[in-house]
């Protein structure tokens, strides 16, 4: 069994006093590619933020919020450095090792040729990959992506999900949790599913019962 990146034990998910899901327990393993699905307002982002606030087992947890603006005036490399706020020195520079890791991360996601391009000129799919590269440079063992496929065209959707799926396959791979409404495409990319059901039940499914779990998010 692969390494456990995060052990979640009896966590309550909700905002304020309202608890949506009580006493959730599960483990996230290295190489997991988990699709998080549920209706709007079912608590997908809340769950992600709760996990983002946790401490991993010897690893960082990084979250990419949905609809991040592609601010004009930053190259892909500069954007990654900006997002590595804690790792850069006072002048905003990365260490040589991190610079090397940055190059490797861009290669791994297949966007090394875009490294000096302004992010405002990237497609949404390419920008998502730049965000994922930033998480890798931050040595994140768990990467949470809030709706990475929202507003993407079909080609970009497939490209991003493929990238996520590949990311989880390699050696030394992180765990990925992504929320999405693109169930069909998402199911092909993931190996596990978290379904926040219409009946208010939290379900975590492995390879074999993904279909059943996904069905639970629809009102019967």
């Amino acid at each position, binding site marked *: 069994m692969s390494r456990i990146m995060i052990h979640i034990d009896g966590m309550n998910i909700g905002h304020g006093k309202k608890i949506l899901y009580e006493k959730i327990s599960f483990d996230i393993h290295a190489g997991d590619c988990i699709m998080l699905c549920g209706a709007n307002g079912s608590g997908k982002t809340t769950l992600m933020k709760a996990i983002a606030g946790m401490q991993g087992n010897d690893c960082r947890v990084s*979250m990419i919020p949905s609809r*991040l*603006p592609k*601010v004009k*005036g*930053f190259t892909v490399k500069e954007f990654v450095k900006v*997002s590595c*706020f804690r790792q850069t020195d*006072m002048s905003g520079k990365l260490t040589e090792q991190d610079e090397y890791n940055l190059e490797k991360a861009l290669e791994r996601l297949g966007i090394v040729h875009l490294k*000096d391009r302004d992010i405002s000129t990237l497609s949404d799919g390419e920008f998502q990959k730049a965000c994922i590269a930033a998480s890798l440079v931050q040595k994140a063992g768990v990467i949470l992506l809030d709706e990475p496929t929202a507003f993407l065209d079909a080609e970009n959707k497939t490209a991003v999900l493929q990238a996520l799926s590949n990311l989880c396959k390699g050696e030394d791979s992180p765990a990925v949790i992504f929320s999405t409404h693109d169930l069909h495409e998402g199911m092909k990319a993931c190996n596990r599913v978290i379904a926040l059901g219409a009946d208010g039940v939290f379900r975590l499914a492995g390879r074999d019962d993904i279909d059943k779990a996904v069905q639970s998010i629809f009102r019967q």
Partner: protein
Amino acid sequence: MRTRRHIVVIAAGIFMLALACLADITWGGDAGRDVMLHLRLPRMTTALLAGAAMALSGSQMQSIFRNPLADPHIMGISSGAALGAALTTMCAGVTLGGASIALSAAIGAAGAAAIILYASDRFRNASILLIFGVMLGFIITAIVSILQFSSDAESLKTFYSWSAGSFSNTTWGETAIIAGTLAAGLAIATFNHKGLDLILFGDEFTELSGAVPSRIRLSALLSCSLMTGAVTAFCGQLGFVGIIGPHIAKALLGTSAHKAVLPASLLTGGLIGVCADLLSRVTPSPMPVASTMALLGIPVILYIMLKRPEL
């Protein structure tokens, strides 16, 4: 590539700035040593420093409010500074030293900044926040006008010079105060530059990246209030340079990274300040600097608005 472009742009900027400064002090023909030393030089230096300080303030505000049209003038912070300065002048008379006027102006600016900060929490929409800032400026200016009505002739003259904006009549001491606040403001901004970059991507992303949005905003507004306070106390409310200075810097450098934008804004702001001063002097009868700033600035702002239709 980009580094070389930066060097060329900055060298050209410095050259143009030197030319403008030279033109500014030599315009009007030969002058005696006294005129040069006590009138023209302090005036040129004030224009340079005030323009730089306003542009530096503008670049920080554009980042923390994620609004390309934000600056201390349009968001009412200059008005707050004017109110602070006016209140002190009213209560203590015009005999008060420059430093205390600058301080009270900075406090007034910080008060307005606090209101804007509070409002920014309520109005998520950048355009609505901008309108709120303009309204705030109007209200505070109205209060200043009411104060004007009940003031004596001597303070009235000072009041007028604030509303019109002027680089003349500043002493070396006052110029030094502007320089001091500029240095302090620049130090804070430089310390904050990574945060200013990060917050452009939203508060949520800022928090997730390990920084504190409110701390970034407070630092930036402290820096802005200090500089706007000193500039407004001695030169009046200077508009537009805070908006266009950073834009020209970003357009020329081709980057939004504050490591480059902050120093470049000093240069463009200083250049605009000196050019506005020069323009106010070359006309047959001297024009108020606020008007020449508007003449220089508004076409650029309209251009920005046309290029960014989402505003």
